[in-house]
């Protein structure tokens, strides 16, 4: 990871392939704010493509800004944060901010390092002078809790430093003295009853009493407490039981990993909401950050959806990495961050919407209206102008709605793709995956992280292209090729991209079927049709049956000569008409049948345009 910059929402969802930097990012922010910090090691240094580590240090810069209840940046920090950041708060055109650089520098060959915190005055030009050393301690005010994919409440219960353990260990303090004494009294009675009723315990007790005689101590006593008499230890023996519908209530340990993992997250939620309340009452500022890896682990899709809703309700800020389309489908587009690794370092991309600017402009205008006068005008107008500029080229509400409807809700997996190959029709949808596997020596597209996507109509590329552009996912298009279609597709692409050379592959025909005919795949097509409808359906049955019928346009189909035999010159037309009559039905047959086509060397022959496309794809894969 090198020169990686990301901005975070209240809830941020990180998506991207494995090894795209999600965990590295979470680890790095944990180094700055982590409640449980781990030691950085040399492995955390950037490694270039040659496997070298050119620098012996790394920097993590974090900027904190105040936001309003709509999570839009506001000018001033609240008093509680003034008291935490003190005079390390800096001011830019839009108001207060607090920024730090955490620098780790290794010395010698081992993992010995020195860390320093600098205050950042200018976010675009960080200096590291001695008088930039941070003068305040953030302490627990901003606490990041890093929960990795291996969480499990049945372990947490036993660990003092887990969220469950942290909260549970406060149990003792929560009793007033009278209730504590009462509980102790009750436990004492309980212990007596238990020993009284159990022969085994009674036996044990008498035997152990002999300890006294060996030590010569007459006054002492040996007693067995099946139940802990120390209220302080109460949390240690605590068990969490969970009842699922009508089944019996039983201990968490006997539940599956999914439930345990989920329960662990819930205990975190309980922990933070408790802390938020108690810190506030103690007059301390507190802002928890949850860094959570793969919340979906072990969970059923429905549970994943519910889980996401519960995450949204956790206080503070959340950063969640996921591989689950179900989780992504729940997320708002602006919450998504796509991490990827185009060359040897990670990058992040995201959707950019005009909405935040619009809201902020609205607020600034309202301020002008409410307060009035030249001063507020002079203050707000330049900001409004700047916001208007930064709004340009971003996605509108309508764009957003479309992307959500056409992609995220039903095909969330696209977000995890390394590359997209887009096409229009149903036949392609059936055929391209098979052709791909053939071309790439038996490897499927998903083996390369490539999504093959039928967009369902020539005018439907827009949302996919927007997604590809903002998330920085390379794309290819295999498009039908009559004049109108080509123009329409190119128009959609050029709307989003200035450069798209070698990205669009146009079949210079009306559709894929027509292209196959043109590319001399008649045999394959015919055999596909006949496999579907029974042998000899085409051309004989079809031509005879359809001859003289009208096409959609009203034109009469002419396949037979006057003598009733099939006119060889119209066979291509007949084939096309036949295919068009039931694309959906034929598509799977044709897809498999293409693979039987052989060239002069008796190798599988693929459609020419498709081969051209795959060659580009391969070149691109090789680069990356």
């Amino acid at each position, binding site marked *: 990871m090198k020169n990686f910059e990301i901005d975070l929402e209240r809830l941020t969802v990180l998506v991207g392939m494995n090894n795209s930097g999600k965990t590295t990012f979470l680890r790095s922010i944990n180094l700055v704010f982590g409640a449980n910090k781990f030691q950085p090691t040399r492995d955390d240094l950037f490694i270039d493509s040659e496997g070298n580590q050119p620098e012996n240090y790394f920097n993590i810069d974090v900027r904190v800004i105040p936001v309003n209840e709509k999570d839009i940046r506001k000018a*001033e920090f609240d008093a509680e944060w003034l*008291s935490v950041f003190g*005079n390390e708060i800096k*001011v830019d055109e839009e108001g207060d901010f607090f920024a730090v650089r955490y620098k780790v520098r290794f010395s010698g060959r081992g993992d010995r390092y020195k860390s320093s915190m600098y*205050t950042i005055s200018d976010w675009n030009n960080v200096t590291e002078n*001695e*008088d930039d050393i*941070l003068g*305040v301690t953030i302490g627990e005010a901003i606490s990041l809790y890093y929960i990795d994919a291996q969480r499990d409440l049945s372990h947490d219960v036993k660990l003092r430093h887990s969220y469950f353990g942290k909260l549970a260990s406060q149990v003792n303090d929560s009793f007033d003295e009278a209730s504590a004494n009462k509980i102790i009294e009750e436990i004492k009675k309980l212990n007596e009853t238990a020993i009284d009723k159990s022969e085994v315990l009674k036996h044990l007790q008498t035997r152990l009493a002999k300890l006294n005689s060996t030590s010569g101590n007459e006054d002492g006593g040996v007693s067995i407490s099946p139940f802990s008499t120390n209220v302080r230890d109460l949390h240690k023996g605590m068990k969490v039981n969970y009842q699922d519908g009508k089944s019996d209530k039983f201990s968490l340990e006997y539940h599956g990993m999914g439930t345990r993992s989920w329960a662990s997250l819930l205990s975190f939620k309980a922990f933070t909401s408790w802390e938020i309340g108690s810190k506030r009452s103690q*007059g301390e500022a507190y802002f928890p950050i949850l860094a959570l890896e793969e919340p979906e682990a072990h969970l059923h899709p429905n549970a994943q959806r519910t889980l996401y809703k519960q995450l949204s309700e956790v206080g503070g800020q959340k950063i969640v990495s996921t591989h689950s389309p179900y989780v992504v489908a729940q997320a708002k587009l602006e919450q998504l961050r796509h991490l990827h690794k185009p060359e040897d370092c990670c990058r992040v991309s995201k959707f950019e919407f005009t909405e935040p600017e619009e809201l902020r402009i609205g607020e600034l205008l309202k301020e002008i209206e409410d307060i009035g006068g030249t001063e507020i005008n002079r203050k707000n107008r330049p900001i409004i102008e700047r916001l208007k500029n930064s709004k340009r080229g971003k996605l509108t509400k309508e764009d957003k709605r479309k992307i959500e409807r056409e992609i995220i809700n039903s095909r969330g997996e696209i977000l995890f793709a390394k590359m997209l190959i887009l096409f229009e029709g149903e036949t392609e949808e059936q055929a391209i995956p098979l052709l791909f596997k053939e071309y790439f020596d038996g490897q499927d597209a998903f083996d390369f992280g490539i999504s093959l996507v039928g967009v369902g109509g020539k005018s439907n590329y827009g949302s996919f292209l927007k997604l590809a552009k903002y998330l920085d996912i390379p794309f290819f298009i295999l498009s039908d090729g009559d004049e109108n279609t080509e123009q329409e597709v190119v128009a959609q692409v050029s709307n989003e991209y200035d450069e798209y050379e070698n990205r669009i592959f146009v079949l210079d025909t009306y559709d894929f079927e027509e292209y196959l005919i043109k590319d001399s795949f008649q045999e394959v097509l015919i055999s596909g049709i006949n496999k579907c409808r029974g042998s000899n359906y085409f051309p004989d049955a079809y031509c005879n049956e359809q001859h003289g019928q009208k096409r959609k346009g009203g034109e009469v189909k002419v396949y037979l000569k006057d003598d009733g035999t099939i006119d060889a010159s119209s066979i291509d037309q007949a084939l096309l008409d036949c295919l068009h009559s039931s694309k959906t039905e034929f598509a799977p047959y044709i897809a498999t049948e293409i693979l039987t086509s052989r060239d002069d060397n008796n190798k599988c022959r693929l459609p020419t345009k498709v081969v051209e496309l795959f060659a580009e794809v391969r070149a691109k894969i090789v680069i990356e």
Partner: protein
Amino acid sequence: MENLSKEQSNIVSYNNFEGALLVQAAAGSGKTRILTERVRRLLTDIDDKFFSVLCLTFTNKAAEEMKERLHNVPKIRERAFIGTFHEFCLGQILIKQKIELGFTEIPHIFDDNDKRKVLENIFLTNDIFTEDYVGLEPKEQQRRIDGFLKVISEAKRNLITESDLGTLNWSDKRKRLYREYNDRMFNQSAMDYDDILLYAYRILTERPRISSLYRRRYKYILVDEAQDLNYSQYQILKALCGNSHNNIVMVGDPNQAIYSFNGSSIKYMQEYFIKDFAAVKLEIQKNYRSSDSVLSLAKHIKNNVEIGNNFFKGKVEIVIANNESEEAKSIVSIIKEYISRGIYSEKEVTIPISYSDIAVIARNRYIFKHLQNVLDSDDELAANYHLRQGNSNFKYESKYINLFDLGLRLIVNPSDVVHLRQICKDIYTKFDVDLDRRDLLLNINQFCKNNAYKEFALNQLVLSWKTIIEHPNRLHVVITDMKKSFLSSELSGPEQLKIDYDLDQIATKWTNFQKATNPKQHNVSNFRHYLALNSSNDNGNGVTLSTIHASKGLEFEVVILMGLNEGVLPSYRAKTNREIEEERNTAYVAVTRAKKCIHMTYPIERLMPWGDVKKQTPSRFIKNYSQNNG
């Protein structure tokens, strides 16, 4: 918690801490206590804990005392800034908001000597000014420089920036000199003491968002010794408060206004503050500190003083000596008498008296000359007194430590020309602005042509500098290493003693610096800032010798006020009524330092610098005072 009288306690929480308040409080009425308790109660009584308190004191010493008394208040360090204007402006405004002035690194502070060198260099190198300077007698040259230093300082205290120069009726030459001076300072990344407030003022007024930041944070502001506010300090307070903030309390005593030569005036507290902030004025006249005798003396000096009815009667004595050396001897015998008795007792109450409970105070430092001679020749007393330094800079005895220190300056500020020139001068090497500083320091033996510096000693310095360059926070390690290596070396005995003394001085200051600052900020650069603002050296034990000005805010069981002649107090310089009244305040400050007893001494003749003996008359302030008054 400290015990407060009802009167004091009412003031502490007056009007639930809301609104502007001027507390005019007489000497000994518990000003520090009132301020301290107010800070404590603000931080503990108010439910909302998300605010901070800004408490501006006149001296570091006063700030330290308050911090000490408040150390057990939770989060005191985070929630209260207690310190001087300069400390606040440098540490909390300039360093934090330096980017607003276009600095990537905050300029380093030059003291009066450094400033003098900058000016001297302008006079010597800039053609426009050489003609007025080069031909002059050395003494005259000094006067020119002194004179202009004063002009610069005054202009800065009046917050004159270069853009304001047009409005001044200065000669063009003077304006050019002022600009040139500022340019040279800026170019070597330096600023002077007055720049601290000027820069802070610029940030606060030119960047309303920044002043708003401080305003929002420091919901309560307290100002100690407000009678000595000057224009720039008052303007900074105003800029800090803007139009909305008026939770500001000033505590001061017009009778103790003694700094008008620094531009201070009671009008800021008594007139402007009342007007600008609609401040309510409260008075507390009762002196809880001094005995009745001391109070009656104070009343004799300043007629508007209220005499309390305190427990102790105390004692006032006037000692007339034939000459200065007799005066010195009688003072020594007074001290010895207290020490041999070891107590002060009255009405069956016994108070122990040791050296540190006694102070000798005088209008000017030269008055101590004879006394110091006598003290130094006394086996017992020589080790049991110290001269309280005002804002003087401490100098190194050893040339090696001096060189080490100059090197440190170049390490923290490579643009520093003044000290580079100084090093070159000391080691007899040709000065060149473009000299590579690191190269010079790390190969100083090759540059050094001055045989007085031993090679092995310079090598030790190189090692020390190297360590500091790599680890700016390890000054203490370097000091220990230097001590070890120098003191086991073949350096002469006297040189070793000097080095030992100097290193101890630095070590003490470093320790104090560490105590006063955040551990993360313990580095040489910040240490330099700290030294610049904490130059007074008041860690001495035993009897305190202090000028009246430097004794402000202190108290002693026994005060010996010496040299009470006309011409000394009041100073011969004081001519106008106003000036005489300020001298009267000075006398008042002096006597109110005493808790129990005061001994006033004066010689009837004095040896003048030119050799004449001059008859002396007693100060008009005690002329008609009868010792039996009290």
